[in-house]
């Protein structure tokens, strides 16, 4: 082992902007054949943008992407694919009317208008690849009848069929059970042993730590750390991004000590997305006036849980609100009954002004009541007063989040569900949001259910905490105990 081979993939100075947002800033790394690099970061950190830019799905604003020395930056996706970069998407969309074998054959076809007949060796090759990824037994089945793990195998098979030199894999283990995770780790390891360069994109270090040679961590479009899995987990910036710095706690345990049925009572709730288990026997309760946080990494199931409460996804088990079951109620009726969700995606009406967005939230209120509520909210978020006439889509991310919360509060909810309000926001904005929550806690009797990955943001506002991991509640207790027990195991 005297001289190391040249890198298969060399990315330098990669920058991608969407309007004013810098999604990836000056990102650089190299991957050699037989090497696996993990690219990690929370939602909105820009890791997916980097992956999509390498594949040519987005065009970079600056930087180079060298595949064996050739700069492919800015090439159309199909040329990059033919040059030797393959991608395994997180969400598979196979051809549902074709069999598994035909789906794999598709990936083996030449990009030609004239070769209409499928060449004979393609059939054989497709069978061999299917065997390799463990689809041998289901060759003639159609994708809609396959279990989730087999659909992921099919995506792997398609990537393998292209015989790529570099493989990009988006969230390889999302939605898989532990046993399946082991099998997929083995498949990814096969890519490595085949001398390919592999880029694994994931939310957290933990899930890819055993597989990767090195990790590059991103946050808000920038590189924050690079090194072995242990080094990155020890890195101060990474810890601050995931865990935050110093944690303050103001729990009010007396609120949960009240006897009787809680305001919101969730018992053994299961949710399936197609074949992926998104929630498994989740139980939690929220009492009147409490601030409860559900913390967990992206993909753990927080949004699914909130959507089940809001009546947006079907579920098994029971969700009770003020003593009555919610099953069978429409999302609109649940919202009118006092459960208002402020979704992660914000769902503002982008072409309407700040004022109009607020007024839509307050549609059901009497006129003077609406004015009073709006006045109170404009005091809670003073910046919205300045922006009243501006179109919502032109607001900054932080302002949009405040508007989303304010609009939800215009509906005068009994229970406000906040799904990941800190997503992609800068620290200054977090402080403003945090102050607004403190004010809500101290001056109103509103009940809040907060979903967060940022524990530092969640803890100061939490009376109690639930930790959601891989679709299951793995820990519950008060905020003080969480800081003491869970702090280090969370990454």
């Amino acid at each position, binding site marked *: 082992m005297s001289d190391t081979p040249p890198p298969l993939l060399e990315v330098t100075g990669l920058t991608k902007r969407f309007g004013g947002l810098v999604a990836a800033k000056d990102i650089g790394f190299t991957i050699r054949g037989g090497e696996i690099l993990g690219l990690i970061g929370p939602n909105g950190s820009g890791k997916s943008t980097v992956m999509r830019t390498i*594949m*040519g*799905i987005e065009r970079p604003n600056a930087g180079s992407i060298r595949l064996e020395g050739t700069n492919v930056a800015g090439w*159309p*996706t*199909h040329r990059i*694919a*033919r040059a030797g970069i*393959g*991608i395994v*998407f997180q969400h598979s*969309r196979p*051809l549902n*009317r*074709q069999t598994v074998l*035909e789906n794999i*054959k*598709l*990936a083996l*076809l030449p*990009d030609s*208008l004239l*070769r*209409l*007949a*499928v060449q004979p060796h393609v059939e054989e090759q497709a069978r061999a690849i299917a065997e390799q990824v463990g689809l041998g037994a289901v060759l003639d089945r*159609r994708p*809609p*009848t396959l279990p989730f793990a087999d659909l992921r195998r099919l995506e792997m098979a*398609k990537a393998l069929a*292209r015989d790529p030199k570099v493989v990009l894999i988006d969230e390889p283990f999302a939605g898989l059970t532990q046993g399946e995770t082991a099998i997929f780790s083995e498949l990814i390891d096969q890519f490595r042993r085949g001398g390919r360069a592999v880029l694994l994109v994931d939310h957290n270090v933990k899930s890819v730590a055993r597989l990767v040679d090195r990790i590059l961590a991103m946050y808000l479009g920038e590189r924050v750390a690079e090194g072995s899995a242990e080094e990155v987990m020890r890195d101060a910036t990474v810890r601050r991004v995931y865990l935050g710095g110093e944690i303050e706690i103001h729990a009010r345990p007396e609120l949960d000590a009240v006897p009787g049925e809680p305001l919101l009572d969730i018992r053994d709730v299961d949710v399936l997305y197609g074949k992926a288990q998104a929630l498994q026997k989740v139980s939690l309760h929220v009492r009147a006036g409490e601030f409860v946080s559900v913390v967990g990494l992206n993909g753990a199931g927080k949004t699914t849980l909130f959507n089940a409460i809001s009546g947006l996804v079907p579920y098994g088990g029971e969700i009770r609100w003020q003593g009555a079951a919610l099953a069978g109620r429409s999302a609109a009726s649940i919202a009118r009954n006092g459960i208002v969700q402020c979704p992660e995606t914000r769902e503002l009406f982008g072409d309407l002004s700040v004022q109009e967005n607020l007024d839509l939230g307050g549609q059901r209120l009497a006129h003077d009541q609406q004015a009073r509520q709006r006045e109170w909210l404009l005091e809670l978020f003073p910046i919205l007063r300045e922006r009243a006439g501006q179109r919502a889509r032109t607001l900054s991310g932080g302002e949009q989040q405040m508007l989303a919360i304010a609009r939800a509060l215009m509906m005068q909810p009994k229970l406000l569900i906040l799904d990941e309000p800190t997503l992609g926001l800068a620290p200054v904005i977090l402080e403003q949001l945090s102050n607004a929550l403190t004010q809500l806690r101290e001056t109103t009797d509103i009940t809040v259910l907060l979903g967060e990955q940022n524990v530092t943001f969640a803890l100061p506002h939490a009376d109690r905490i639930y930790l959601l991991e891989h679709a299951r509640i793995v820990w519950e207790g008060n905020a003080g105990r969480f800081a003491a027990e869970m702090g280090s195991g969370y990454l």
Partner: protein
Amino acid sequence: MPKILRSPLPLVLLALVIIGGVAPIWLDAYYLGIFTVAYYFGVFAMSWDLLFGFAGEVNFGPTFLIGLGAYGAGLLNNAGWPLPLCIVGGAVIAVIGGVALAVPALRLRGPYFGLVTLVAVLLLLDFIVIFAAQTGGEIGMMVPDVLSVSTAVNYWYAFGFLVIAGAILFGLSRSALGLILQATGQDRVEAQALGFNVTKHKVAAFAISALFSGVAGAMLTFYQGTASVDQMVDLSIAVQIIIAVVFGGRRTILGGVLGSIFLVLFDELLRPIGQLNTFVVSGVALLVILFWPDGVLGYVLRPREER
């Protein structure tokens, strides 16, 4: 192809081709005329299904391509070209016009592509009306030549063309190209990531669709002796083509023929009830689309496991 189809389908098709081929022996001239029109309509529908069912592009302007073929052939015939060359010329014009439209339009996504094709029809309509001296405007353009004066021969021309077009389009849909087109229609990004030049394949599909639409439009002109806006370019014709495909079965190619025969035949059979005929036919089509969105043939051919 699912195994259950392997045995019966070719036999059924062969039987239908034989029955259709000998129809002039046992069917009277009135019905032969109806079927002749329905067959040309069937080619319009199959060509449209290649774009919608496979490439996933909703072309609201199939009549733009048909009209180019019909009027192109008609103008050439009036200029003194012999009939066979006029049909070739009409087809060439339709393909050139179709590709000229598709290349810029395919850069747009979703409903915008459909809107561009819609506007293309309106432009063609305007063009025909403005140049009424040459095109006959809203009244239609007479052509000097006809395919044949015999009803049976006209029927055989239409039927032969339907069988050839059907065999080629159906074959293409089951070929490697058909598979790639379905992939580009379903997930553009993934198809590109598998190394397929999506634009190239979609433009090719548009050109093939234009070729058959253009030839069918030209032949229909020489069957009827006129190229007319009402029967070949109007948006209501485009809507009927779309209904025929959805009724017969999207993504089946042959379903469009079934839908066309249904629309044309019943429209004619129900003529005695007056204006209500279109209403009844559209009503039935609407019910089928609402309750069997995969269409008649789509339902029949659907693999058992999905039913």
